[in-house]
């Protein structure tokens, strides 16, 4: 089932810097907040600037009662840089919620996230009400504000940084086999760099549990119309990340 979609201007309520180049923007948008599911995303448009296309951003938090949505994003290029310069009171245009989210029908999922891939997992963790654990990967301690964000919503959290400045040193996925060993989890929900998700999928498979992954592709329409974002599916068909995803069962898209 596709969610109803909206295209509307939303007022920015707050904009905080979380780490170097990483920001959290909260907007008032009750329509989208009312229906968004964890793993779905919006296409955000800058009003009146020199950025033409929308930029896809996962939903990090949706507070239905307050009608707010939050996004956690890293400044990469022109679009995200322009977003980061907006101040409360300014408006952005949102098209969403788009795509299909994570499977909500799980009892004890293990979330595996790297970098900004942790953003949609935050929304998911919150909806799971402490039933999920999270394994987080980041570059260095400066980016591990995530720990604080996840704390209220997960039962346990594990973490690794590339330089060992916080948690274990190395890739987060390296910790995965050990975590899956006890057979505690009924699925792995992964979002982050493609290589990380591929490895997480292999390990989940080895452990005999399903795995979902969230893909990232450049997008123009976000509605399944332009084919900017299509990928090969394992069954030989083509899938549109924006519409058929961004969340897929690992075996749908990884060989």
């Amino acid at each position: 089932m596709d969610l109803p979609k909206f295209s509307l201007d939303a007022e920015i309520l707050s904009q905080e810097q979380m780490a170097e180049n990483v920001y959290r923007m909260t907007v008032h948008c009750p329509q989208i907040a009312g229906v968004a599911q964890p793993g779905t995303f919006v296409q955000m448009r800058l009003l009146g600037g020199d950025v033409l296309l929308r930029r896809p951003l996962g939903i990090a938090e949706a507070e239905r009662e307050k009608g707010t949505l939050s996004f956690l994003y890293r400044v990469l290029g022109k679009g995200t840089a322009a977003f980061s310069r907006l101040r409360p009171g300014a408006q952005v245009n949102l098209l969403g919620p788009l795509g299909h989210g994570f499977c909500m029908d799980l009892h004890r999922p293990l979330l595996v996230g790297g970098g900004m891939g942790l953003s949609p997992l935050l929304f998911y963790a919150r909806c799971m009400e402490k039933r999920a654990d999270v394994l987080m990967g980041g570059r260095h301690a400066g980016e591990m504000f995530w720990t604080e964000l996840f704390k209220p919503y997960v039962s346990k959290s594990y973490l690794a940084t590339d330089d060992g400045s916080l948690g274990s040193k190395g890739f987060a996925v390296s910790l995965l086999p050990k975590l899956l060993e006890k057979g505690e989890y009924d699925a792995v929900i992964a979002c982050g760099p493609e290589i990380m998700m591929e490895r997480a999928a292999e390990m989940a498979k080895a452990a005999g549990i399903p795995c979902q992954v969230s893909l990232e592709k450049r997008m123009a329409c976000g509605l399944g119309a332009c084919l900017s974002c299509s990928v090969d599916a394992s069954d030989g068909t083509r899938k549109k990340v924006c519409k058929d995803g961004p969340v897929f069962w690992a075996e749908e898209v990884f060989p």
Partner: protein
Amino acid sequence: MNGGLLKTELAGISMNTPVLTASGTFGFGEEFAEFVDLSLLGGVMVKGTTRKPRRGNAGVRIAETPSGMLNCIGLENPGVDVFLQETLPRLMPYHMNVIVNISGTTVEEYGVLAEMLDVPGVAAIELNVSCPNVKDGGIVFGTDPKAAASVVKAAKKWTKKPVILKLSPNVTDIVLMAKAVEAAGADAISLINTLLGMEIDIHTWRPTLGNITGGLSGPCVKPVALRMVWQVAQNVKVPVIGMGGIASWQDAVEFFLAGASAVAVGTANFVNPHAAMDIIRGLEAYLQEKKLGSIRELVGKMDCG
């Protein structure tokens, strides 16, 4: 909708408004059904269809450029059989003019496609002879007047539907191309397709796009598109469907004044999914304000006295 003001007819297709959506930018229409009343559109030019399914180009397919974008989708589509069996029946309930954009690798293939698509539910076919993003053919039909004419003839021979020829802007003399396809029997001409461009990633020293080059579209190309529409409209008798960078009703008015009988909205659909609706409403208000009885009173009325 204050019925009627925008109603028009083009190459025998009756249209509720002269605002269409451009091929490749609007899927099969259904993807935009939540944002646009599809039956109000003059037509939906659906994604480029080929004889066999195509996977399109590998790698990155779009890039943003100043006031525009590059794409190298490369005609990904499920093929005409799937279109006829699965897609077309699904589109029936929308009561829209379905204009099928087709690409062939040979002149004969255009004929085959035209015949296959000569079925109820298809309002017209649009011949894409100018996709810059595929290697096997296409581009030569779009830059050589004789080749373009032969494609039109092949299509006309095998279908009774109106045949629209879509011109490439990547030519020295757009009027020559237009006259050639008019003489070959095209019922209408649409222009422009994308300009050929590229971008290089200065971090990796590699082209941004998987296909190296891609097609440039969006507001940045509007001045070129408008100029070509003006040049062509003066020199042919068949109607012209203008497109290239149209993002507002004001842009659309410029194209009508330059001589377009209808316009198509492309890249703007990505920016604003109800762009076509906004343009329809804006045009209607403009006609009312100017006390014009029909959109036709604008067509070709630029005064260069």
